[in-house]
């Protein structure tokens, strides 16, 4: 497949404006200005693009909600708070192809008649900050940003805002709170950000990869775009593959490529040709899959049918030597640490899960601990303010479901040692 999102990124100067233009960059911007803003939104809708942040909400529909709200000004915010363990798919765009993001933001701003855009950048991406700032300056200098873009009288300004390290700020309402200078915690919905977002004004928050798809759609047209990958959720998808594969990295593949293809065809199989034990397919909050479930197509529609989610497309591969109880504990430690503390079940429940897992993985598990894990997960699931707590509960449930015997070994050994 021809690469678009990662086009040009192997070149040493790929972040440079000239290289980007040489490779055909900013043509989509000019093309979009020829249409009415509402036509651009219609085109995105028609293309069937779904948000790449993890939830998979149709982007065009989100845009049309914001466009229908009469409140002004509107804002476009790019969610570049890529913080989920295993996820590093946005990094190559941010660091190697920043003008693609800038072009996408500019088109989004035009389509939504927004004059200000923000890139909420993960605090731990300081290198990307330098590159983005440089690229934005170049874009201003060449008239791709500013008060009179391409001499068409279009106004769009873009600012990079660095986060301070909280995972929860990748959740769009917590991101907006943080952008406003407040404590990063999710807001209640409704009102949705498309109606009352940044500073109470209609705001569209889209993932880096989502925004990076916009110029592609404008360039090749919705019809052609919707033929890429699964027609129900079309387009190219970035997969960040890590763990026990021979060639880890970021891969741009059509939506719906199966896990097996990703692991064995593109990443060269398991390191040392060992046996595969498990895969976390979409970032740490997506349920783990056992080795026999890897024939599922990686897309928003099919993954839930196979008991997991596409999430951010962060594939983590574990070979036969891995202690999955410890993997589970590691995931929950992360989620406990990142629980914002707003709602009871996540704040207290995830910590409780972690302490049980510490006990079990640390060799002092007790009879009944596995059932207690399931009980506590059940009490968290579906009751939290935002999806973080649900994610933690889902992780524990999926690990116990597929690998209960490993937990039992830990508990039984501990119990036998203790007696």
């Amino acid at each position, binding site marked *: 497949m021809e690469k678009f999102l990662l086009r040009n990124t192997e070149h040493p100067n790929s972040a440079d404006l000239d290289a980007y233009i040489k490779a055909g960059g900013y043509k989509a911007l000019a093309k979009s200005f020829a249409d009415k803003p509402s036509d651009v939104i219609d085109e995105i809708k028609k293309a069937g693009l779904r948000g790449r942040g993890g939830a998979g909400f149709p982007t065009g529909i989100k845009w049309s909600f914001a466009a229908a709200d009469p409140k002004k000004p509107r804002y476009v915010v790019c969610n570049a708070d890529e913080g989920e363990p295993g996820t590093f798919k946005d990094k190559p765009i941010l660091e190697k192809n920043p003008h693609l993001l800038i072009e996408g933001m500019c088109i989004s701003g035009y389509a939504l008649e927004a004059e200000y855009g923000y890139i909420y950048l993960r605090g731990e991406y300081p290198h990307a900050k330098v590159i983005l700032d440089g690229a934005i300056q170049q874009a201003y200098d060449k008239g791709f940003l500013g008060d009179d873009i391409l001499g068409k009288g279009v106004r769009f300004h873009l600012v990079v805002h660095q986060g301070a390290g*909280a995972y*929860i700020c990748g959740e769009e309402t917590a991101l907006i709170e943080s952008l406003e200078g407040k*404590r990063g915690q999710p807001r*209640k919905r409704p009102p949705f950000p498309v109606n009352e977002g940044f500073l109470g004004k209609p705001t569209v928050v889209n993932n880096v990869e989502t925004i990076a798809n916009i110029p592609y759609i404008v360039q090749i047209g919705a019809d052609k775009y919707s033929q890429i990958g699964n027609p129900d959720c079309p387009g190219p998808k970035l997969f960040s593959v890590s763990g026990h594969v021979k060639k880890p990295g970021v891969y741009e593949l059509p939506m719906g490529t199966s896990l097996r293809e990703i692991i064995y065809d593109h990443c060269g199989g398991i390191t040392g040709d060992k046996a595969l034990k498990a895969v976390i397919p979409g970032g740490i909050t997506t349920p783990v899959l056992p080795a026999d479930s890897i024939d599922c197509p990686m897309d928003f529609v099919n993954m839930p049918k196979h008991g997991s989610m596409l999430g951010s497309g962060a594939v983590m591969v574990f070979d036969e030597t891995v202690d999955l109880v410890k993997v589970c504990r590691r995931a929950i430690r992360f989620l*406990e*640490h*990142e*629980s*914002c*503390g*707003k*709602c*009871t*079940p996540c*704040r*207290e*429940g*995830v*910590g*409780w899960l972690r*302490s049980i897992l510490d*006990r079990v993985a640390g060799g002092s598990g007790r009879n009944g601990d596995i059932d*207690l894990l399931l*009980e506590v997960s059940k*009490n968290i699931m*579906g*009751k*939290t*303010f935002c999806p973080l707590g649900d994610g933690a509960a889902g992780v524990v449930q999926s690990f116990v479901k597929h690998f209960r015997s490993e937990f039992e070994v830990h508990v039984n050994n501990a119990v036998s040692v203790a007696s």
Partner: protein
Amino acid sequence: MITVTINGKQIKIEKAVTVLDAARIAGIKIPTLCHHDLLESFGGCRLCLVEVEKLPRLQTACTMYITDGMVVQTETERVVEARKAMLEFLLINHALDCPYCDKAGECDLQDLVMKYGPSSGRFAEGKRKHPESYDDPIIVRNMERCISCTRCVRMCDKVQGASAISMVNRTSKTFVEPFSGGRYNCEYCGNCLTVCPVGAIMSRLHKHTYRPWYIEKNVDTICSFCGVGCTVTAQVRGNSIIRVIPEIGKGVNKGLLCNRGRFGYDYINSGGRLTSPLIRKNGVLEAATWSEAIAYVAGRLQDVKDKSGGSAIAGIASARCTNEDNYVFQKFMRAAIGSNSIDSAAAFAFAPAQKYFESIFGQGVTANPISGIAKADGVFVIGGDPTSVNPVLGLQIRAAAQKKVPVITVGYTPGLRNFSTHSILPAPFAETSLLAAIVSELSRIKSPDVIKSAFGEIIRSIQPVSSEDAQNACGIPADEIRGCADALAGMTNPAIIIGRDIILRSDGHTNLLLLAALMQLINGRIYLASEQPNERGIIDMGCVPDSLPGGRPIAVDSFRKRYEEFIGSPIPSSQGLGLMEIIAAAHSGQVKALYVMGENIAFNVPDHSYVKEALEALDFLVLQDSFMTETARMADVVLPTLSWAEKEGSFTNLEGRMQHLQKVVDGQGIDDWSALAEISTLLGVEMHYKGVKDVMAEIARVSPLHKGITYEDMEGGQCMWPYKGEPLRHDLVLPGIDMPDVKSMLRKPGKDMVYIGVDKPLFHSGSLSRNSQALSSISSKPFARIGGGLAGRLSLADGDYVTISTSAGSLDMPVMLFADMPENLVLVPNNFEGAGVYKILAWKMNENIKTPAFDSIEASLKKIERITAEGSA
């Protein structure tokens, strides 16, 4: 109409409310923790999860709004299980120290766990540790009990507007901390205590001194500090007040309080309370019996009256006393003494301002409900910081600001710093030019129809002042003045809040005229800030030199005759002296005896040495008070009287709301009115009230404004002006309006001069609050406020001691720097013993409205070098 079905019960509701409110209407209780009626919904505790048909997830009832046809279940197995799970989660890191925790017995979490929770938890690991914080003198924080409901933070942020505390950290390590660290740097309103559902934030004042079930009675009464008249509940055990708390939704304050009202009540238990009558014998105050003291006072007053006539005796009443006390006081002065020289400290701003506005617009024009401020579409504040004078009224301004309406503040108002849209800081004492320019601009903007009334003629005849000329005088750029006028012109129901600082001037009457014009031009409602609880009441009761009870002018024969007939004795027909005139007359020897009830005139009237001379010149000074004040030390007789919480009566607050003050505990001493009645009887005008109800019954008979009023009428809290009676109807009688000339309105402060002004601190109230240990622990020492420029010129840093001198004297105290203070101004409070700013404010009276004039008093500051711990230089 929206129809919802909750637990099978169908109800119809007019507008979309939350499921929680809908359930409440249906009489179904859904348990909550993070929800609070005074706060926006939050959805954090997850205790109110309910099942909503067609939605797969459980929903929080506090955040979900009803829609037509919605079907809700609140007690299904799934809901009950979820609730249990949330409570189990909450107890994971909640210290289970209920047997030791003061909150036990009134703890929301404890109650909910008892009702809905699991009987035992399964969490077997250690709880988080967080040492209890005793860094603050008033508030104890125990974060092991905190359940992160954030009610305190939301209260502090959104309602109080102090933004002093925050949630810190994430996960179960989340806790609440003031931004200032251990000790709070806040307004000490204590509203966070009200909303804390558990024992995480508690008052230190009564820590471990009670259990909620020991409280024997709850008495609803009215706070004694300022003119807002907040409703408080005093909780009593035996004969002592355990604590004072508000009740959510009740009273003017609707459950909010300020530091003084919540913590300051302990002054009644102060060691400084007087217990026995005192008579000066051979220059020394000695204890005497009540009958001895009463007879002595009557005898001495009779002597003065016989020798010099009743008019040689003057009386000063107090707006800290009840309507009943003040009614009897004026009757005593008029009938038994034969003098109309009756006044109070209300004469320092509230009374003359009310009189001025009423003379133009009619009686009751300043009687406006405080709740109207938050509903106004604009607020104009001048003459002081309402958030420190009347803190709960100040919250209404902040509430208006939260709704993004324009809030214009003129002058130094630090409590509204984060809330005003137009923060205008004119040069000291040069506000007149600004007001004149605003009035001129508004007269131009508004159509002539607005000012068609008789007063409109007067507005038209005020000489116009250009914004440029005003800029030259007050230093505010002309564009800013015009912007302010534009903002005012755009308002349709604005609130105008007037503090005393703009009135206590030699041109105070000009300011009142301009404010009256402003009010007319923008159709505003006037609120007069009021430092004492009964300033309006004292005027209603006739403790003024020119009016009888019910606001009837003494000069009108028919009113006076009617009152004489009723009380059965004659009263003088000529107007008496006002407070400032009384002191001056004492100084000159015209007034020979002074009867003071509950006012510390030796401290609270400007120019202490002048006042001291005046009091020393008297033949006889008698004082009724609860404390050994500066005035008491100079008196010939001191009669100890009951304090707040020890007596029944009524207060009339600044909005004209009569409220019933309850007796809470027994005190030593007698009612003010009762002492007066006994002396009056000895002087030949018999007064035999069996109780305070008799006094109120008499008021109800003689005051046309209070016709037929009883305490029952006040119970609902809705006894608003004109109460049950009739206000005085009259045509416009302009109070001899002096038309100011342009030159006087454009008066500007002298170059490089430093002026002194009165600071009104949030944590104190007159000279009363110094008797409160709690308030003294928050703020124990006076300091002078200065701005950065002045500090720089004089090389002063925070805490440096200075000698502040004026023509009338000097004071030593530390300075504190405040960035937004006007240049060339030093503000000093008048609360602390031996360090009141009134000591050094030279005697000067505005002859027009008979108030002190505090403007343009020059001061010099001199740094005291190397002060040692002992305080010697």
